């Protein structure tokens, strides 16, 4: 079945968030998800770190302000752990 537009948007959003956090906030490219501790979600933690760095509301969620910041043209150097 064709993917519903909302789902497609969600997929794109997740892709944007993951690649941004991998590029600039040292989110590990998680090849072994089953090793992840229960309850710990690295993306939420890294999102909070990014929101804190940019002075955004720290929600741990890819809200509108956070996505807008991620779409801004920027320097290719990571913001942390350089």
């Amino acid at each position, binding site marked *: 079945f064709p993917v519903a537009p909302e789902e497609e948007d969600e997929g794109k959003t997740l892709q944007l968030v993951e690649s941004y956090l991998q*590029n*600039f906030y040292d989110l590990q490219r998680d090849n072994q998800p089953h090793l992840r501790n229960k309850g710990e979600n690295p993306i939420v933690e890294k999102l909070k770190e990014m929101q804190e*760095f*940019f*002075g955004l509301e720290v929600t741990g969620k890819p809200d509108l302000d956070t996505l807008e*910041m991620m779409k*801004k*043209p*920027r*320097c*290719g*150097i990571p*913001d942390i*752990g*350089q």
Partner: protein
Amino acid sequence: YVFTTGNPKWKRNHLTYRILNYTPKMRQADVDEAIRKALSVWSNVTPLTFQKVDNKEADIMISFAYRDHRDNSPFDGPNGQLAHAFQPGEGIGGDVHLDEEEAWTKDGRGYNLFIVLAHELGHSLGLSHSSDPGALMYPTYSYTDPKEFLLPQDDIDGIQAIYGQSTA
């Protein structure tokens, strides 16, 4: 301001730079001027000096590059990542790479080469990204008329904490 992890810095105050290639989107003289002005942003407030060299290895090698350019940090085409630079050190250390697929300009259209270069040179000298939205070392691009540009205090404090104040 934030220092790069490990506090790398150049052991000499007299540094060299070399322009390896030019973007066809700007006149060469305008690229030279943008680079010279971007370097003076930092030399004006520190004891650092920069000498242009043309045919030998320089401390800071400046080049325009496409996508995968063999430094493990491929560019992503128009917008997104505009440029990157390497912390002080031998070899690729200090070098600045600019994404050739960006619309480089000397004014407010596209991406102003001077502004992006001045930011990247901050990395070349040992600074990391600042979380001060008004700082030159803030990660996202924002345009300022080069004729009116003044290095913000956060950046002055950062670079002088590494190299000291200008002796001029």
